């Protein structure tokens, strides 16, 4: 039955095509969210503090740089830089994730119960809904990206990848860049475009 087993190069070519098709598909998901934003907010946006979003955006973009360094490193069989690059990427991704969760969403305790909403509640009408919906869907992808990076890091530790054979690293890297790219669309849509109207909140 050896005829079914394809050479690794052929399979990697197929994997790559599959991966890009997956991105095309996901683009429709994120595109749908962007359409929802413009449909519901029109040319307005909630008036939110700007510093934290700008900061975590910078962190996320920087993480892509380290992801790329890791990928280039494994292509040159430089294992040390590779492993370190992965860890830094995951760490920066995690900072972004916490930034969204703590500063943007803001978990606080009121009357002994957790409540959500630093600046704006998720249930505060359509502004809360779209803000939490879009950052939430993106954060979920970031979280999945972090998990995958850690898996790749662990496999790398076991010596699974080499300069010739590192499809897993490549896939993770493009996935991470993709998540980054989505944020480049989401960030201005949520925080920059439109006239700011006063944030409601508590």
């Amino acid at each position: 039955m050896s005829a079914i087993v394809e050479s690794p190069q052929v399979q990697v070519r197929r994997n790559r095509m599959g991966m890009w098709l997956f991105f095309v598909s996901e683009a429709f998901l994120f595109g749908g969210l962007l359409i929802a934003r413009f449909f519901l907010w029109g040319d307005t946006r909630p008036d939110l503090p700007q510093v934290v979003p700008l900061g975590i955006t910078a962190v996320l973009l920087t993480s892509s740089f380290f992801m790329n360094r890791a990928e280039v490193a494994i292509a040159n069989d430089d294992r040390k830089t590779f492993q370190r690059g992965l860890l830094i990427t995951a760490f920066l991704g995690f900072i972004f994730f916490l930034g969204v969760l703590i500063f943007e969403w803001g978990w606080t305790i009121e009357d002994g119960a957790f409540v959500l909403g630093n600046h704006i509640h998720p249930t505060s009408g359509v502004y809360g809904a779209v803000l939490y919906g879009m950052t939430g869907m993106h954060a979920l992808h970031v979280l999945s990206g972090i998990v995958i990076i850690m898996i790749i890091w662990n496999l790398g530790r076991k010596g699974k990848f080499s300069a010739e054979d590192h499809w897993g690293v490549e896939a993770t890297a493009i996935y991470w860049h993709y998540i980054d790219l989505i944020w480049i669309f989401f960030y201005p849509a949520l925080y920059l475009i439109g006239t700011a109207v006063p944030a409601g909140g508590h």
Partner: protein
Amino acid sequence: MRFFKTGLVKGILVGLLWWLIGFMLVEVIRVAMGLPAAWDPNVPAGPVAGQNALQWIVAGGLAAYEPAMVVAGIFFVIGFMLGVGTMSDWLKWVRGIDTPMHHGPKEGDPGWFRYFGADYSHKVIGLQYGVTAVILLMFAGTLALIFRVELANPELQLSLFGANPEVQGTLNWFNTLVSAHGMIMIGSILLGVGAMSNYLVPLMIGANDMAFPRLNSFAFWINVPGALLLVTAIFIGGWNTGWTGYPPLSAQAPIGVQYFFIGVFFIGMSSILGSLNIIVTTLTMRARGMTMFRMPIFVWAAFSTALIQLTATQLIGLSFLMVLIQRILGLGFFNPGFPDITVIASSQLWEGGGNPILFQHLFWFYSHPAVYVFILPGLGIISELLPVFSRKPLFGYKWIALSSMAIALVGFLVWAHHMFVSGMNTYLRVPFMLSTLLVAVPTGVKFFSWLGTLWGGRIDLKTPMLFTLGAISVFLIGGLTGPPLGTVTTDLQLHDTYYVVGHFHATMFGGFVFPFFAALYYWFPKFSGRQYNERLGVIHFALMTPAFWVMSLGQMLAGTRGMRRRVADYDPAWGIDGVQLAVSIAAFIIAFSVLLMVINLLWSSRRAPRAVANPWRSRGLEWQIPSPVPELSYATAPVVVGEPYDYGLPGSTYVQLAPAMTGGD
């Protein structure tokens, strides 16, 4: 019992365990957040006097635990997938263990065993899709028979729907059955499409399997928990929104709507992953010499379909997810609240501002292209079978191939024709009317090419051919009734009436059900190695086709007289009693004829005489190899040297099977 060791059973058991875990998880989080938990005595939930636990659940009692129910439903799907074993290779990869591809049944397992668990062969997966599709078809059909009994006469008949005050019945049951019929049928169609493309595409292009066999198995199995949730939704309170699930109604519907959302979400995930596989397979795994324009026409159809499924499906998933979240977390995407956006903008109390029309846009951006997902493979089957049974070349091969792509693309530009009366901006109406009518052009191309193929052919009326011709006649009805709906002026009258119901039944039967049955009969010798009973096949056709004409034309007639959809009762003054009765009788005849087919195929797969090698004298690749197809379909690589449909041209060859290689590559 060996059956209890199958992946299916394991999947259900592990799924139920995960269901429980998910439920408890939410309750624990609720307690941690200071919210009342399920066991809090102040939560007014639990069977009331005179009700047992089951009656309480069926009446929707679990609604009090909606967030926990939702998370549990999602956990059920995850648990099922872990239990069934399609993810075990991936989980090993994550831990750094390589898993070489294994083909064929496991040592010591009986032959049927692999069909009930994770198996990576596309031939097994194709049949799994097909059998599941037929089971869902029969289940959803049974639901329709129940409410057709109700609709056969004016006033309420069935106690289930509240006709008898002594028995506890409600019209919610009617709504639930209508909604469940619609969505489970759509699930069945999607699985039927999956059956045809998974089984046929690799065989037709001379490949030994799909590009990603593990993903293929995953994409099939995720339908099963999805379908189970859809069925469960009926019994935990049901839902009253129809298959479209529009808010604001779906935002306040009984809790069944949540399992409907989750079920559809995962069936949609199957569409996305499955179509990705089809696209890569078609683009990279064709036999030597098979250029794009030498592919069998069905492969073109499956390819165009996959392009739609890959992209548009995300939008129905998103729209359902948004309502799901609005219900459990209160994110008000579709909750208008204040009527005027300027009020909200200046208000400190930000409530409302949501817009239910957004849902309709997102929903139809998938669901209109989805109707082409339903029909394109079927139209491909029609084009595939006509030349075989007319012994003539397919008329205008390139035009047909490209018309599938054209339909797929134009299909993305017409969605708002479902929303002419929704309250969307009126200036959108005319553009969408024009784009809708444009679809008639590529569809017309197909019709003319079919006529051209039949013209002067030596037609052989075997069962598959009968169903192909039936499909053309029925799809003609469906296609001709579309333009009045696409035209704004007439649609304002016809929207939400039984005319629409008649229209889409005709398109779906003509575009999917008839061709699917044709395909089942046609490839039955291929996958079973035996010949079905021809006489029963002809009887099936002779019963179903006229009954279907009566049914869909009757529905349209009732609609033009004022019969609205999704309503249990109607005014005798409209004079449609006779029509309604005829439609109900026709529905029962169709159901009976389908039963005949199922019996025929089941019986024939074990008892019927063995089929000859190429019973239809087809030129297709898949007929040049033994039936049933061996584990390794093409032990010798086929080479394509000619055109696929040159029937009746002496001396033309499509494919050569190269001299046997020994020992593989």
